[in-house]
């Protein structure tokens, strides 16, 4: 995996958009420098591979692999319990 691909993959995992379209309709590619700086604000190590492992560890440590809170519609199906 190229450096850029590894950074993009990690950015996507934490929810950073690697491209965006501005109000004029122009598409912008977010620079490596910005992505690295923002990933660091999530408290993750700079090496994308190490950071991914750390995120996976956090996920495994969650009891039963479940997040702390789940929202369900009073009227609908609880999507978090339905089979994937």
């Amino acid at each position, binding site marked *: 995996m190229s450096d850029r691909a590894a950074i993009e993959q990690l950015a996507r995992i934490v929810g*950073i*958009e690697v491209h965006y379209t501005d109000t004029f309709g122009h598409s912008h590619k977010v620079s490596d420098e*910005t992505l690295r700086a923002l990933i*660091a604000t999530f408290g993750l190590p700079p090496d994308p591979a190490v950071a991914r492992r750390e995120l996976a560890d956090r996920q495994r440590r969650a009891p039963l692999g479940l997040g702390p*809170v789940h929202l369900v519609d009073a009227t609908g*199906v609880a999507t978090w319990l339905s089979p994937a």
Partner: protein
Amino acid sequence: MTPPGLPLGYHRLDLEAGGVAAQLGLVVVPACCHLPAELGPGARNWGLTGQLYGLRSTRNWAMGDFTDLARLACAAGSYAAVTLGINPLHALFAAEPLHFSPYAPSSRTQIDYLYIDVTAVPGFAEDETARALIEGERFAVTLGAARAAGLIDYSAVAACKRPVLEALFRRFQTHELDAEGAAKSDLGRAFREFQRDGGQSLVDFAVFEALHEHYCREGTGFSWRDWPAPVRNPRSPEVAKFATAHHDRVEFFQYLQWEADRQLAAAAVAGCEAGLSLGLYRDFAVGVDPDGAEAWADQELIASGASIGAPPDAFNRAGQNWGLAPVNPMILQQQGYAPFIAALRANMRHAGILRIDHVMSLNRLYWIPSGMEASAGAYVSYPFEDLLRLVTLESHRQACAVIGEDLGTVPVGLRKAMRSAGVLSYRVLVFERGHDGSFVPPAEYPPLAAASVATHDIATLKGFWLGRDIAWRRRLDLYPDADAAEADERERRRDRLLLLDALVSEGLLAPERAGQFLSANGDPAFSTELRDAIITYLARSRARLMLVQLEDVVAEIEQANLPGTTDTHPNWRRRMSYSLEELVSGADLPRVAALAKDGRLRSAKG
């Protein structure tokens, strides 16, 4: 499926599988926000909006306060407005009155104490120390100068209010609490109860205020990041020791919150009794100042090393850095969204409507790494579905309708999601255009919307017509080059024609009258006739709620805030040209109210 019969709200689920036990929060949410009949299908109502701090009155202390709010709410109610919208009341920095932007607060769960009407605090009339203070020469000189000024002098307002509030707190301690601090009266008990309800978040805020005051006085600087290491941590023994040693001071800041909450509640009740059926509409800022109480109290939640803003757009070609601290979405989720829920509740309190500023923040925010240009940021996603559902639940629980400010770059699908959640879209006259730039006809406004003539961030009606915003941008050198300024001016000339066309085609302006608003040399002219036509135009829209700014009622030329400027322009400091007494007894408010009511009755159905 949801366990049958589980009511709306927050539940705790205990799970066990394979010998592993886990607890998780289960939140049962309604499909839709609270929507009272006033905002229900077919409704056509109107509301007044204004900047509370900017109200001028013969009795206030050089800045709008909660007694002014009550009076204005009553006036609005008497003219059949359903709501009175105000700027965010979030707590700013008591130790540094020069940080006065209501959209860059220290805490969004607390209220700014400068809105307290000191003369309405229980005990004021009987307190001799308070009386001696306000009868003193220093007070007279400071208040006199602040009252005469065209702009708010926040330091002077604080210098007048603070010593008197301190005296009233000492009186409160003597009269309502015993030597051990136990309540000995109804007021004392109400205060203790408020503290209990406020919990850790109120304590943290008050301790921060005391610490901030201490270190600002010592010259350590404005930011808690410059404090000695032990007190940067809110849970350190040193902070606990400080809080004990400064117990009275910490309690003073809680007392201010209690009094602010009591006066805000009184204003809301007064408005409702005068016919303001939905009461107040409060505004919820998009974030907090990184140097403030909330950022200090939960340093894990607030991502350091970045701030939020916006990428370059037509209005700000270099992008914008708002200097606000972003919330780390992963930590927010880990905390079960508790800080978000608490902030919503705090701002729905004593309100019938909550306006969420920059509602896109539920979906994504533009983060700019520290030290980088505003154009070098990136969008960070937030758990939109969850946050929107929490908004619907809290709206329901607090019986508070929600407006989402959806101006600017709106992600695909966001407005649809807002609609299905019963969140009103926020539409502003000058932004509602067809592809050819023409103004959207009233009948084509969406029904589930709050349609406003203007906002605090754009030119007032008169300012728009006369190009005041463009003139300011030119004067402050905000345009990248002369071409950009000329392009804006060309566009404005065209906009005036388009707006006149729209008014003529709705039959609100005779074609032969239109020319008088554009003089022969191309300089525009503004009059109340034009204001009336524009207000009627918007009143006829299909939007269930139509909003008029107080500034536009009396045709002010200056806007509250000029985006892209901070200290080079007097943002958040403008006082209304007319006093509240003049507004209430003058001809403009009844005129605008009558136009709004009449226009609403004739508005397009559907």
